């Protein structure tokens, strides 16, 4: 309720509630996003837990991981990692640009970020098709598809948010004063990137 319009419309006198007292310096929406991310981390945590159970606790866990005939496409995923990490920087650049009022740099940054995210997702789909095993091929495949799939779903959500920013960006809704709508998806996108690094290290490298 404390929010101000990203771009003010109509702007007529509105009879509403008294503005709430701001009892914290933290912005409500940023706090909300951070708490949401906390909850997301726990969701990933449950997936890492199940990974831990099948690979470490389980007395029948295979000593080699993944079990011999199968291999994880470490290299392709490595490239994908590079793509995603770079996109975090372009995202940051886009946000800084709109803060400085450089609209075209902002838009360019957003579009590049979006395209890189999309490239990541497509690579992952192709990787799934060529990986050489399927969900039914054992617990190692379960955690592989589970963790990368969960992350992929988060990339998809992130892309939706970025898409939203792009649409509104082209319509001129953001300005140096009003850029919360960029900042929040940005925070989420950084989270998705960092999570990928963790997923990549545990699933592919460990």
């Amino acid at each position, binding site marked *: 309720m404390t929010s101000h319009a990203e771009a003010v*419309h*109509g702007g007529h006198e509105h009879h*509403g509630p008294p503005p*709430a007292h701001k009892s914290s310096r933290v912005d*409500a929406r940023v706090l909300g996003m951070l*708490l*949401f991310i906390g909850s997301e981390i726990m969701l990933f945590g*449950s997936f890492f837990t199940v990974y831990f159970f099948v690979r470490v606790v*389980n007395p029948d866990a295979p000593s080699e991981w993944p079990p011999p005939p199968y291999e994880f496409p470490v290299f392709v995923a490595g490239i994908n990692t590079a793509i995603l990490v770079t996109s975090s920087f372009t995202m940051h650049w886009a946000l800084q640009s709109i803060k400085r009022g450089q609209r075209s740099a902002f838009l360019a940054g957003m579009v590049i970020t979006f395209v890189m995210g999309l490239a990541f997702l497509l690579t992952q789909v192709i990787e799934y098709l060529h990986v050489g095993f399927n969900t039914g091929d054992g617990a190692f495949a379960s955690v592989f598809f*589970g963790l990368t799939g969960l992350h992929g779903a988060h990339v998809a959500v992130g892309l939706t948010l970025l898409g939203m920013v792009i649409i509104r960006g082209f319509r001129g809704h953001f300005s140096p004063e009003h850029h919360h709508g960029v900042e929040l998806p940005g925070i989420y996108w950084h989270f998705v990137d960092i999570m990928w690094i963790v997923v990549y290290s545990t699933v592919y490298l460990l």
Partner: protein
Amino acid sequence: MTTTQHEPEQVEAYPEHFEPPHGPTWRLIFGPGLVRGVWVAGLFFVLGMLLVAGLRFWWGWDPVWLWDVILPIAGMVTAPIGFLGGIGAFDYWLHYISGRPTRPEDHSGHGARTWKDYFRVNTDHKVIGIQYLVTTFTFFTIGGLMAMFFRAELAQPGLQFLDSQTFNGLVSAHATLMIFLFIIPAFAGIANFVVPLMLGAPDMAFPRLNALSYWLLPIAGVLFLASFLAPGGSFATGWTGYAPLAEGQPLGQTFFNMGVQWAGASSVMTALNFLVTIITMRAPGMTFWRMPLLVWANFTTSLLVVIATPFIAGSQFFVMFDRIMHTSFFTPEGGGYALGYQHIFWFYSHPAVYIMMLPGFGIVSEVISANARKPIFGYRLMALSLVGILFLGFSVWAHHMFVAGMADWLRVPMMITTLLIAIPTGIKVFSWIATLWRGRIHLTTPMLFALGFVTMFVIGGLSGIYLGSVPIDIAASDTYFIVAHIHYVLFGGSVFTIFAGVYFWFPKMTGRMYDERLGKLHFWLTFVSFNATFFPMHYIGLRGMPRRVFDYDEAFGDLNFVITIASFVLGASFVVFVYNVVQSWVRGPVADANPWRAHSLEWQVSSPPPIFNFDEIPQVVGGPYEYGVPGARHAVMRSGEAAREVQHA
């Protein structure tokens, strides 16, 4: 039946930017609302179906029309999303995304003028609170009726009139509805109504998210109930849905897997909202150490929800993947680990029992201090003990697995942490009874329920201590002793506090007073029949009757018969409550703004509160429980004071 007073010009059904649909028919079909919800849900169901079938056709998988996959996607994901879109839960965000003009401060969805407004997407926390309560009590009735059915079956050993699938299905659905659609959201409902008022805030931090959280609930409930129509019957693996049993079950189990996701999403969103509201929207002067304990309770509960709930989401996803995508998270044949499920499940579900208790602690603190006319004893320690339970609550999950075959070395540490929870809980119990000491005790209905709670919860907590001791648990686990524990903490605990809360804030919510005599009748009937129903269960459990059985040893026949009769009386006692609430809501005497002469902020505004709660945000100047302190005030109301005068005139 309105909850809020209005100055009509504040509310426009359609703000100027959202083009209003043309004629009334057009508006009915295409305007946000239940009608649009239903047809868009149908549309999305078909879309989801085509999506699955199309993909399967494309990959060349056979058969294309595999209902075990189509139903989970189309029926449990896309159709509910369509429903939410249809009733209008996403309208604002869709406008925002598409870049059309929006007005964040738009209050078109605020307040209720007629009863019909309760069936719309409403962003007013007071309306949402009532929506929650009415919905959850509906599910309580359904879940309770299920208990009546299987209790009737249990009156004698052997199968009488149910079959084993139906029996297990009823027990599972009973517990699932009670937990996910009654206790947890009923507390969210009370808190929704009360917390923003107590904080001196005009609404929750994210009113639209708040509305969305509410509308996810009926989806979960409908899924749980719809499972009874699934081929093979409803889910029948208990509310715990242990793998690997759950993985070989018919389609009904998927309804459980997905229903839990919707209910869980709803609680996470609400919890986020409470946390942000409590952190950022407190009135000036409302420091953390001046917040009423109900707010503290919901603060800690919300932290539990945000941190723990993703784990149950995970556990149900894994089971569903194992069922549908043939993964092997928990199936040993494929290299999975069966006990993993229980660890992940209980990492949520133990904290969940505190999610189902802490808000009740909050309610009881409010009720006892207002009705004993004394400050709550040891306010700070009361708040800190909540925080203590919050932390300890995460370190005890394996006490549900003492006989499950988990690592032996985990048993003793988990036993110790489990037993330690008695300390902060004990602090709360002793502080409540110390608050009674030398008070001026008003035995109103909410007070009766609060005192009933204190005594009954101690019994339930003490049986928890027995179970916390590993050797005793080895003997008592999975017997009716557990069933007795569950109901002493959940019924004698949580449900009693919900009743206390509903009676206590009834005048605030409805503007009318409930009938005190019926309320007392309700309490005494419930109190006696509750004990008659559940106390003997300790005995039959220890003597050797396992839980979740339709058939049992002849020796337990007589006691089970007595229990069944008592449970029918318990069911009947609820009818008194329903009658009291309905008839008082319609034509009870008009209530004062502050019938209990309580100090917290919600009582300083009219009953029901004005649409935006406060004309001006109050200034908080002291603690919320300064009963008997000469000249003490919790808050200065400024012009809110004037509003009260008007109401009395």
